[in-house]
């Protein structure tokens, strides 16, 4: 498939809204979801560390 130019590529034969509307939302979700999961694991590890150090509770 040779698009010829970047404009043609983004136009998607007149269906740009539908093609990119699908891909952009998918990409966003697939970036945000892993970030949330990674953040959740880090927080869980931090919480566990504060449990494991009794001296932290006194301060």
């Amino acid at each position, binding site marked *: 498939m040779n698009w010829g130019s970047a404009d043609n590529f983004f136009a998607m034969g007149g269906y740009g809204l539908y093609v990119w509307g699908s891909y952009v939302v998918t990409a966003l979700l697939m970036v945000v979801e892993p970030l949330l999961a990674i953040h959740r694991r880090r927080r*869980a590890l931090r919480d566990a560390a504060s449990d494991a150090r009794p001296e932290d509770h006194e301060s």
Partner: protein
Amino acid sequence: MKLTLYTFSSPPKYYALTGVLVPVCWVLAIVLSAIGLWMGFFVAPTDATQGEVYRVIFIHVPAAWMGMFLYLVMAFWAAIGWAFHARLASMVARAVAPTGAIFTFIALWTGAFWGKPAWGTWWVWDARLTSFLILLFLYLGYIALVEAIDDPRRADQAGALLAVVGAVNVPIIYFSVKWWNTLHQGATVSITAAPKMATTMLQAMLIMTFAFWAYAFAVIFTRARAIILERERGAGWVNQLALKGSSRSAKP
């Protein structure tokens, strides 16, 4: 590390094993996505009847497959956790749910963006679309239910019941295009018949499916590890691991 069947029932072993697997899954997901998208946009030809809009298929179909497949995975581990009192299996079931829900949402969203130009409508209450929307509600219902019950083991059991009963919806989705007269087209790819699409289109779609698969494993393993740390908090191995992790990053 020696792998046995019990590796997957021991939270510390599962945690260690998935720690190794997560980066591998990420590399696979990124490489396969790059190849799949390149093939989808630059190798696969324009569709004779639909023009360029058909290119939504490269995420629509893999996302729909993942949405259904992950539901069965979730129901399977939830049932194992319930039947054999296996904590880890229940934790894995919980880890699967958000990813399955997101893929189901993506399938519905991209379906709407494909339906508008192809059928002239974003949404129609036909058998395939409606049963797929029910799949999304089953995921959301499962998540809401297990989060709403304070006792984690009771929450696991209630969630398992919902997940297992809801699993009947998956074959209904799959066969809906055969059983009912729907606007949605029938299966493009089936095990029993030759695929009804160009080879490069099919290859791009299958590569994207493997990419989504790798992505799903990476995210689900990461979330499962978070859930294990949350639920096993206070256990000796978690304390050790947490102290080791924090002493490495602690400022002097």
